[in-house]
C-alpha cells in the first residue's frame, strides 16, 4: 500500500517528463505491488483506496503505452481496466448506494476514447461499433448522449465522416487544435495516412486525370514534390504537370475473360440445379 502511494507520483512525474523507460520500470514495480495486494483484479472485498490506486496505475500504464505507440500493450491495459470501470458503472447507477470508490480521478472516457481511436485507425470497425453500442446504451440510461463526452465524441465523429467520405472533415479534425487531448494527437498521423490512401483509391476511379497542384490539395500534401513522390509510390503516370491514372485493363479483353469466367459458373450452377432436382424428385 505504502509502496504504491510513493510509486504513483513518481510514475506521474516520469510520464510528464516523458521519461518512458523510467516509467516502464516504475510500472512493472507498481504492478508487482498490486499483485501482492491481490488488487490487479478488483473484487467486492478489495478496499476502495486500493481499487483507486490500482486503476490509476493501470491508466498511467495505458497512457505510457500509447505514447510509446505500443498498441498491443495498450489493448492489454484497456482490458485490465474493464473490471475497474465496470465497478465504476455500478456505482454510477441511479439507485445505488453512495460511491465507496472515488471516481473523480478516473480517466475512463479518455482511455475509452483512445481505444476507440485505436480501433478506428486499425480499421477494426466491427469492434469499434461493438464498444460504441455499449457506450450508447449506458449513456441513454443516464439520459445523456455519447456525444456529450468530448473524448468519445471525437472518434465517433471521425468514424462517421470516414464512412461518409467527408475526408476533408477528417483532415480538419486531426489538426492539433481540434484534438481533445495531446494523446489523441498521436493517432493523427495514422489517420491521415489512412485517408490519404483512401482518397488515392477514389481518385484513381473517379478522375481521368488531375493537375498536380490540385492533387496536392486533394491529398493534403505539403508540396508538389511530395505529390510527385506519392504518385510514384502508387505508380501513377506524370505528364505535362498532370497526373494520369492508370486505366483499368482494356474493356474488350476484360469482357472476354468475363465470358470465360461466366460460362464456368453458369455450367456449375446448372449442374447444381440438376443435382438438386434429382434429390427432390
Amino acid at each position, binding site marked *: 500500500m505504502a509502496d504504491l502511494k510513493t510509486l504513483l507520483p513518481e510514475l506521474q512525474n516520469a510520464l510528464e517528463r516523458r521519461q518512458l523507460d523510467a516509467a516502464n520500470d516504475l510500472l512493472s514495480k507498481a504492478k508487482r505491488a498490486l499483485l501482492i495486494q491481490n488488487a490487479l483484479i478488483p473484487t467486492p472485498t478489495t478496499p476502495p483506496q486500493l481499487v483507486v490506486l490500482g486503476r490509476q496505475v493501470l491508466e498511467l500504464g495505458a497512457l505510457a503505452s500509447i505514447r510509446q505507440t505500443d498498441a498491443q500493450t495498450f489493448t492489454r491495459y484497456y482490458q485490465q481496466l474493464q473490471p475497474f470501470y*465496470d465497478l465504476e*458503472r*455500478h456505482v454510477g*447507477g441511479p*439507485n*445505488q448506494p453512495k460511491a465507496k470508490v472515488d471516481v473523480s480521478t478516473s480517466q475512463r472516457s479518455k482511455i475509452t476514447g483512445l481505444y476507440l481511436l485505436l480501433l478506428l485507425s486499425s480499421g477494426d*470497425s*466491427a*469492434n469499434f*461499433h*461493438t464498444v*460504441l*453500442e*455499449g457506450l*450508447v*446504451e*449506458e449513456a*441513454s*440510461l443516464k439520459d445523456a448522449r455519447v456525444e456529450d463526452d468530448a473524448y468519445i465524441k471525437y472518434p465517433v465523429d471521425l468514424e*462517421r465522416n470516414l*464512412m*461518409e*467520405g*467527408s*475526408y*476533408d*472533415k477528417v483532415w480538419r479534425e486531426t489538426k492539433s487544435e481540434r484534438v481533445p487531448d495531446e494523446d489523441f494527437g498521436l493517432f493523427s498521423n495514422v489517420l491521415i495516412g489512412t485517408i490519404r490512401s*483512401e*482518397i488515392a*483509391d*477514389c*481518385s*484513381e*476511379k*473517379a*478522375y*481521368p486525370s*488531375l*493537375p498536380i497542384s*490540385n492533387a496536392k490539395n*486533394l491529398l493534403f500534401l505539403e508540396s508538389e514534390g511530395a505529390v510527385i513522390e506519392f504518385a510514384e509510390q502508387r505508380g501513377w503516370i506524370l505528364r505535362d504537370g498532370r497526373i494520369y491514372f492508370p486505366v483499368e485493363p482494356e474493356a474488350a479483353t476484360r469482357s472476354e475473360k*468475363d465470358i470465360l469466367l*461466366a460460362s464456368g459458373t*453458369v455450367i456449375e*450452377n446448372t449442374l447444381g*440445379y440438376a443435382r*438438386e432436382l434429382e434429390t*427432390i424428385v
Partner: protein
Amino acid sequence: MPAERRSLRSNNKSDASSSANGEKSSSNSQSSGAKEKAAPATRSASNKAKGAPAKKGTTAKGANNGMEENDQSQNNRPDSTENGVNGSEDVEMGEDTAGAPTSSFNTRKDRNGDEKMTVVVPPAKGSRPSKKAGQEKDEDTTMEGTEPGDSEQTEPEIDPTTKAIQDIKINFTLLDRAVTHFDPRFTLRVLRSISSMRKHITPEVLAKVIVDIYPDSSSMASFLLEAIDQANAFEAVPADLKMDLDLEKTKGTAKDTLPEVDAYLAILVQIYLFDERKIQQGADFSTNLIERLRNLNRRTLDSLTARVYFYYSLFFEKIAPLPPSPAAAVTSIRQTLLAALRTAVLRKDVDTQATVMTLLLRNYLSTSHITQADLLISHNRFPAAASNNQIARYLYYLGRIRAIQLQYTEAHSHLVGATRKSPTSHSACGFYQASHKLLVVVELLMGDIPDRSIFRQPALEKALHPYLLLAQAVSVGDLDGFLNTVNTHSPTFRKDGTYTLILRLRQNVIKTGIRMMSLSYSRISLRDICLRLGLDSEESAEYIVAKAIRDGVIEATLDHEHGFMKSKEVGDIYATREPGEAFHERIRACLALHDESVKAMRFPMNQHRLELKSAQEARERERELAKEIQEGDMDDEEAGGDFDAI
C-alpha cells in the same frame, strides 16, 4: 351382406375406442391410487366412447352429462372403491346409466346403438369386445343401484376451479405416458396446454392438486405450497376426506410422484407467481427449484427443465436494477445459466441447451455485452434439433449481433430466417414485429429498399410506421427528411434498440441521393450536389462522390478543374451477369427453403409399424372382399338363374 359389412367396420371403430378406454383406465389404476385422478381420464375416455358410435358427434348436453358424471364419480368414490380394481371402469360406464334418466332421446339411442353393435359382432373377431360388453352390462346393473342416491349432490354447472384441477390432472397422465413411452410429444402437449390454463391458476387450485397427489410428508409438496402461501393446505383438508386420502395413498401406490409431475407443478407455480407480479418471490422460488432440478438426470424432464429456466430468467429480468443498467439483476444469473448450458451439452439435452443459450444471449444483449455474446456463439453450436421457436429466437439475436458488427449480409440472412420461423399466432406478435424492425433497418443498411408489402401487414402496420418513414427517406435520398424522422422518432428507435444502427444510415441516404442525381443528370456541378444533399462544403461533396464512384454506387467521372460530375452512359443491364446472378440467388433461396421444410418434418415414433399393421389388415380385408365378391358373383348368377326361371 352389405349391412353386415358396415357393422363390421363400425365395430372396428368401437373396438378401437373401447380398447383405448381400457388402456387409459388401466394406466390410471396403475399410476395412482389417488381417487380424483381417475376422473378426468374417464371423462375424456367416456366422451370418446360416446363420440365414436354417435355418428353426429356428442351434443353439448352429452358432454355436460359427462362432466356431471365426473363430479358424481368423485363424490361417490368412497362407495365405489369397494369395487376394487374395476373402480375406474365402472365410473366410465356409469356415464351411460346416469345419463339415461335425464338424457334426451339422443343419448339413449347412442347407447342402444352401442349395444347393438357389440351384439352384431361376428364371433371370430369380436370375442373380446362381446365379453367386455357383458362385463359392461354387469356393471350397469350394479351401478344403477348406487347412482340415484348420489346424483343430488352433483353440481349442474362446471366450476372453473374443478375444471382447472381436472385439466392439470389430465396432464399428469400425459406426463406419465411420456415417461413410460419415452415420447417427448406428450410432454410438449402438456406444455402447450399451459397457455389455455393460465387464467385459471389460483393458489387454491394448485394447493388442492398438490394435496391430492403428494403425501403430506413430501418435501416437494411443502416447497411448492410455501411458494404459493398455502403452507398449511394439508391441515385444511377436512378430516374425513383426509382419512380417505391417506387410505388411498397408502393403499394405492407407495412410490413417489414422478419428477416430471414435480416440474410441471413447479412451472404452474412459477407462472402463477409471475402473473401475480410476485417477482421477488418467484425469483427465490425458481432459484431453489433449479437447485432441485439440477440433480436430476432424466431425458423426459428436459423440455420441462427448459421451461423452468425460461421463467427463472424472466423473473430476474424484472428485478429492480433493470436490464440496460450494467448492475442489472440479470447479470447475477449468468453463472447459473452457463452451468446449466454446460450440463445440458454434456447430457445431450437439446431443449435446455437451446433455451439456455437464447436466454444467455438475451441476457448479454440486454446489458449490451456484445463481445461476450459473440464469444458465446463462437464457442457453442446451437442444436439443430431445437424447437422452432428457440431457433427463431436464436436467429434473431444472432442477426442483431451481426448487425452491430457491420456484417450486414450475415445479419440479413439470419433475420430473414427469424422472421420466417417466427410463430404467426397473435400472442407472438411482438417477436414478429421486433424481428421485422431489425430486418428493415439491416436491409436499408445493405442499400436495399424493403418491400412495401411488409409495412402493409396488419400485424406490423402500426409498429413499423416510423420505419416506413425511414425507408421512404432513404429510398429518395432525402437527407433532411431522414434526419427529421430520426429526431422525431428517436425515442421509439432507442426503445427498439435500433438507434445506433439507424444513425449509420446517414451515408446510405447520401449514396442514394447521389445515385438519383447521377441517373437524372448527365452532368451536374459539385456545388449543386452539395446544396441538394445539404452537405457542409463542396470539398466534402467531391470526396463523397469520389467515394461513391469507387464503391461502385454510380458510374461517373469527376472533373476537378471545372467542378462537375459527369455521368457515364448506363449500359444494358441484361448484357451483364446481373440477371443471371439474381436468378441464381432466387433458385438457391427456393432450394434452401425446400431443404429446410424437409428437415422440419416430424414423424411420430414407431408410426411405420402401425402403418405396416394397418396395411396388412387392409390387405386381408381386400382378400376377404375379393372372396366375397367372387361368392357374390356366384350368388348373382344363381339369382339371375332364379330370375330366369321365374
